C-alpha cells in the first residue's frame, strides 16, 4: 500500500498500560527523532494512577516546527487491549496500526495498515525472567517501529548506552531487544511505512527539556537557596529537579549543601517556610498546583500585605477540586491574580514553554525582591511535565541578582529614622532590613495586622487606606517591570486579533497560519504577565474584535482583561478549551471560523495576511 512517502511530518502514538515500563522506550523514540535533527513534540497523556491504567504517548514530528499537539495519528502502536477500540479509531485513513499479535485480532478497518508483531511471544522466546519479558516488549516494538519509519539505528543505540551508563549490563540486552523487533519487521514487512524520518538540521542549537526542570534551573541560577514544597502532580518535579541540580552545583568543600530542600507537611507549611526564609533574606520558593494554591491563600495574603518577597511556581492542572490531576489547564488565573481575602493583587508571569520557565523562573526572584511581593510563575502540566524542543539556555555571567531595596548595616548607619513601610522613593516600594543586620537599628515588626509606616499596630482607617494605596502603587510600578506582551502584526490592516498566553501558543501560531492560508489575516498578542502594561490596551484599541484563547471554562483571562483594563468586553470573544488536553491548531482554527459565522461583521474586519509566520 505504500506509495507516496511523507518525510518528517507525522504523529506517532503509543497506547500502553501504565507501570509497564513503556515510558522510557517512548522517550527514547522521541529523543532519537530529535537527535536526527527533527523538531518533536512529545505529549505524555497519563492517568492519575500507579499501575494498570491506560496511558498514551504522542510524538508529533514536524520539520516545519509546529509544536502543538495534532489529532490524526499516522502510526499507532497499540499495546493495551483495553483501549484498542479508541486507538484504532484515531488512526488516519492510510495510516498504520502496530499491535502485539501474539493474540490475533481483527480491527475492522480496511483503510489502514495493520501490522501484527507477536511481541509477547518474541519476548517469551528470548527471555525467561518475567520482568524482562515485560520490559523488553517496549524495546521490541521500538526496534520494529524504528526500522519501519527509518529512525537512525546508531542514534538509538547511543541513546541506550547513555541511558544505562550507570548500569552498563543492561545495554546489551536492550540492544538485542531492539534488534529482535527490527529483524521481525525486516522479514515480515519488507516495505517500510509511508511516513518516514529523514535527518535534518532543524534542531541545531536546540535542546529538549521539560518546563519543570527548566523552572528549577531558573531558580538555581537565580540563587534561590530554600525550596519548601508538598508533593502534588504536576509540580513535584520542580522541587525534585531543584534538589538534583542543587546537589550537582551547590555541594560545598565539606560535602554540605548550599541549599535547603524541605518536604513540608502540607502546602500551608510549604508556603509559610518560603515566606519565613524570604523574610530572613534567603531567596526561597515553593512549587505547587491548584489545590495547593487554595490552601496557601491565607499566607499569600500575609506576604502581600506585609510585603515579603515570595516566588510560587504554580503548575496548573485540571480543576476544580481534585479535578483531573494529570491533565492540563489554565484555570488558576483568577484564583492566583487575587489569591487571599481582602484587597489583594498579585504578579503573574505566564511562561510559554520551558525556555521561559527558565528565564521567568530566574526573573521571578528579582521581581519578588524588587517589588517585595508574591510572584506566581503560571506554568501548567503541558509545559511542566512534557519535554519541549527549545533554544539552548543562555546565561549572562555579568548578570547580578536584584535584591531590591535592602538596607545593610552600613546603610542603616546613614538612615536617621528607618520606617519599614515608608515610601521614600515614591514608587510605593519601601526599604526592608534582614534580621540580625544591625545591633540597634533597622529592627521592625512584621505583621498581617494593619500597620503604620514603622510597622506599628494601627486601627486608624486613614493610615490603613493610605497603606493600601501605596501597595496598589507598587503594582503599577510592577506593570512597567514585567515581561511585555509579544505582539505580532501579521496583517497590518486587520481589525481582528488573537490574544493568548502560556502553553496555547504553538496551537495559536499554527492556527494563524492555517487561517492565513485561507485568506484570513489576524494579528497576535501573547500576554506574558499581570498586572497588564499599557501595550495591551493599545493593541486592543487597534482592533475591533479579539479572540481570547484560554484553557478554562470561564474565560478567566478575559475576565481579568475586562476588570483591569478599559478594553470593552464586547470586543473580547472567548475561545475556550477545557478538556484537559494540550490545545490543537485545528481547535483554534475551527473556533475562529465558527465565530466568523456567528458574527457577520467579524469576517469583514479581516485583512489580507501579509505574513504567515
Amino acid at each position, binding site marked *: 500500500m505504500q506509495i507516496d512517502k511523507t518525510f518528517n511530518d507525522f504523529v506517532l502514538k503509543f497506547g500502553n498500560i501504565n507501570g509497564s515500563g513503556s515510558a522510557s522506550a517512548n522517550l527514547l523514540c522521541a529523543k532519537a527523532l530529535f*537527535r536526527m535533527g527533527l523538531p518533536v513534540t512529545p505529549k505524555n497523556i497519563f492517568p492519575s494512577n500507579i499501575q494498570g491504567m491506560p496511558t498514551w504517548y504522542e510524538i508529533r514530528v514536524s520539520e516545519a516546527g509546529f509544536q502543538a499537539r495534532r489529532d490524526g495519528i499516522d502510526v499507532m502502536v497499540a499495546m493495551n487491549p483495553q483501549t484498542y477500540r479508541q486507538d484504532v479509531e484515531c488512526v488516519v485513513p492510510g495510516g498504520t496500526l502496530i499491535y502485539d499479535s501474539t493474540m490475533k485480532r481483527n480491527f475492522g478497518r480496511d483503510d489502514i495498515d495493520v501490522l501484527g508483531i507477536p511481541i509477547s511471544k518474541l519476548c517469551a522466546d528470548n527471555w525467561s525472567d518475567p520482568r524482562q519479558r515485560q520490559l523488553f516488549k517496549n524495546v521490541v516494538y521500538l526496534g520494529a517501529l524504528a526500522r519501519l519509519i527509518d529512525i537512525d539505528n546508531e542514534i538509538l543505540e547511543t541513546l541506550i548506552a547513555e541511558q544505562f551508563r550507570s548500569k552498563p549490563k543492561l545495554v546489551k540486552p536492550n540492544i538485542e531487544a531492539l534488534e529482535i523487533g527490527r529483524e521481525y519487521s525486516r522479514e515480515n514487512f519488507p516495505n517500510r511505512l509511508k511516513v518516514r524520518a529523514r535527518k535534518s538540521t532543524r534542531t541545531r542549537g536546540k535542546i529538549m527539556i521539560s518546563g519543570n526542570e527548566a523552572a528549577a534551573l531558573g531558580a538555581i541560577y537565580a540563587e534561590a*537557596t530554600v525550596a519548601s514544597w508538598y508533593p502534588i502532580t504536576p509540580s513535584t518535579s520542580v522541587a525534585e529537579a531543584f534538589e538534583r541540580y542543587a546537589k550537582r*552545583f551547590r555541594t560545598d568543600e565539606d560535602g554540605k549543601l*548550599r541549599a535547603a530542600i524541605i518536604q513540608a507537611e502540607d502546602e500551608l507549611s510549604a508556603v509559610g*517556610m518560603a515566606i*519565613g526564609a524570604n523574610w530572613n533574606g534567603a531567596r526561597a520558593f515553593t512549587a505547587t498546583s491548584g489545590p495547593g494554591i487554595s490552601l496557601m491563600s491565607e499566607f499569600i495574603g500575609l506576604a502581600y500585605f506585609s510585603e515579603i518577597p515570595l516566588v510560587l511556581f504554580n503548575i496548573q492542572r485540571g480543576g476544580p477540586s481534585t479535578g483531573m490531576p494529570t491533565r492540563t489547564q489554565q484555570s488558576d488565573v483568577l484564583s492566583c491574580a487575587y489569591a487571599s481575602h481582602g484587597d489583594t493583587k498579585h504578579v503573574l508571569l505566564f511562561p510559554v514553554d520551558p525556555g521561559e520557565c527558565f528565564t521567568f523562573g530566574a526573573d521571578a526572584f528579582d521581581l519578588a525582591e524588587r517589588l517585595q511581593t508574591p510572584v506566581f510563575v503560571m506554568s501548567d502540566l503541558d509545559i511542566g511535565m512534557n519535554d519541549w524542543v527549545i533554544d539552548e539556555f543562555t546565561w549572562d555571567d555579568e548578570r547580578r541578582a536584584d535584591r531590591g531595596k535592602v538596607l545593610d548595616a552600613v546603610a542603616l548607619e546613614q538612615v536617621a529614622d528607618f520606617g519599614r513601610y515608608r515610601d521614600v522613593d515614591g514608587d510605593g516600594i519601601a526599604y526592608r532590613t534582614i534580621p*540580625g543586620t*544591625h545591633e540597634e537599628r533597622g529592627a521592625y515588626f512584621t505583621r498581617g495586622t494593619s500597620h503604620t509606616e514603622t510597622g506599628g499596630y494601627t486601627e486608624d482607617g486613614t493610615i490603613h487606606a493610605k497603606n493600601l494605596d501605596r501597595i496598589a502603587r507598587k503594582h503599577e510600578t510592577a506593570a512597567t517591570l514585567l515581561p511585555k506582551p509579544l505582539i505580532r502584526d501579521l496583517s497590518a490592516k486587520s481589525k481582528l486579533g488573537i490574544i493568548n498566553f502560556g502553553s496555547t501558543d504553538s496551537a495559536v501560531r499554527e492556527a494563524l497560519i492555517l487561517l492565513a492560508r485561507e485568506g484570513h489575516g489576524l494579528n497576535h498578542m501573547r500576554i506574558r504577565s499581570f498586572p497588564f502594561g499599557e501595550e495591551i490596551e493599545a493593541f486592543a484599541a487597534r482592533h475591533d474584535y479579539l479572540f481570547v484563547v484560554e484553557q478554562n471554562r470561564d474565560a478567566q483571562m478575559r475576565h481579568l482583561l475586562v476588570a483591569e483594563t478599559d478594553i470593552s468586553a464586547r470586543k473580547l470573544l472567548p475561545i475556550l478549551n477545557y478538556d484537559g488536553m494540550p490545545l490543537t491548531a485545528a481547535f483554534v482554527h475551527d473556533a475562529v471560523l465558527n465565530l466568523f459565522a456567528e458574527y457577520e461583521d467579524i469576517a469583514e474586519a479581516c485583512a489580507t495576511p501579509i505574513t504567515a509566520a
Partner: protein
Amino acid sequence: MTHIAKPKFSHPNLPKNGLGLTRRNYEGVVSTLCAGCGHDSVSAAIIEACYELEIPAHKIAKISGIGCSSKTTNYFLNRAHGFNSVHGRMPSVATGANLANGELTYLGVSGDGDTASIGLGQFSHAVRRRLNMVYIVENNGTYGLTKGQFSATNDKRSKNRKGVENQFDSIDLCSLAIELGAGFVARSFSGDKAQLVPLIKAGMSYHGFALIDVISPCVTFNNHTSSTKSYDYLRAHNQVMDRLDIVASRPEISADYEPGTAIDVTLHDGSQINLHKLSSEYDPTDADTALSNLNRYKRQGTVVTGVLYLDPDEVDLHDVMNSSKQPLNSLGQSELCPGADALEALNAQYR
C-alpha cells in the same frame, strides 16, 4: 488595659550585663494586654533571660502566630526583628527563617489555641524536624483574643466562666512533644519567675527543639474557681519536679545538692545545665519515664513543672539536612550561581 508610658531615657546607674546592655535594652513596646494577664509575666521572664544570657537582641528572631499570647513578641526585644504571622502557622515561618540563617536564636511564642488546635500539625512537624528554636506556649486553656472559648488544652470537666463544662480530653503538649522527639521539654507557671527564667535560658541555649509550656492564666476569661488554669489552681496544684541552674561556663556550677539528685549536662554551645531533681522517682533524660511521670500526675490533677525531658544528644534540622555551615542568606553569586559554562554543559546533556 495597661498603658503606662515608659520614660525614654535610661538611668545612668542601671545595671548592665556583659555586653554593656541594660534590661531596658531588651524591652519592647508597652503591652496592651489585660492588667494581670499571665502573658505579661512571661514577656518579663523572656527579657530577664535574654539579659542574663547576654545575647545581643538583634541576633534573636521573634516569631509568633495570632492570639493575645502571639501579640507579646512586640512587648519585648525591640532590637530584634519580630514576625506576627498567621494563626497556628508560626512553626513553618520559623522553619523557613531558620533554614535561611541557622545562626540566629529563634524564639517562638504561641498560645494554646494557636498551637494545640489550628496549629497542631505545624507544631508536631517542627518538633519532629528538631527545629532549633525555643517554642514558648503561653497556655491559658482558652482563646483569649476571641473571648473565652475552650481551647484544646482545657482540661476535661473544667468549666468556663458561665459554668459550661468542657466535654473533651485535653491535649498535653509536653507529652506530645516528648513523643515526637523534642530534645528539651519543660513546663512552668507564669507566676514562678524564679523557675521560668532559667528554663527560658536553657531552652534558648539548647541546640534542637525546646518546648516550654507555660501555664499563663487569662485573668479575663479563665481565672475563675472552676478553672484548672487559674492562678489559684496553679498555686495549689503545682508539683515542681526539679530546679535548674544554667551557666555559661563549667567552674561556676553550684553543686551543693545531695548526690544522686543532680544531673549535669554540657550543651552544644558550651553552657552548663545543672538540674536538681526534687523528686527521685524519675529520670528526665529518659523519655519513657518522663511520659509516665507526666501521665501519672495529670490523672491526679497535678501540674508538674520544671524540666520534664532533656535529650543530651542535641540534633537540629540543619544537622539532619546536611546544609552548608555558612548561613544560606549570606551566600553570594559565586557560591550559588553555576554560571554560563555550567549551563553550556547542561545544554549538551539535553541535546
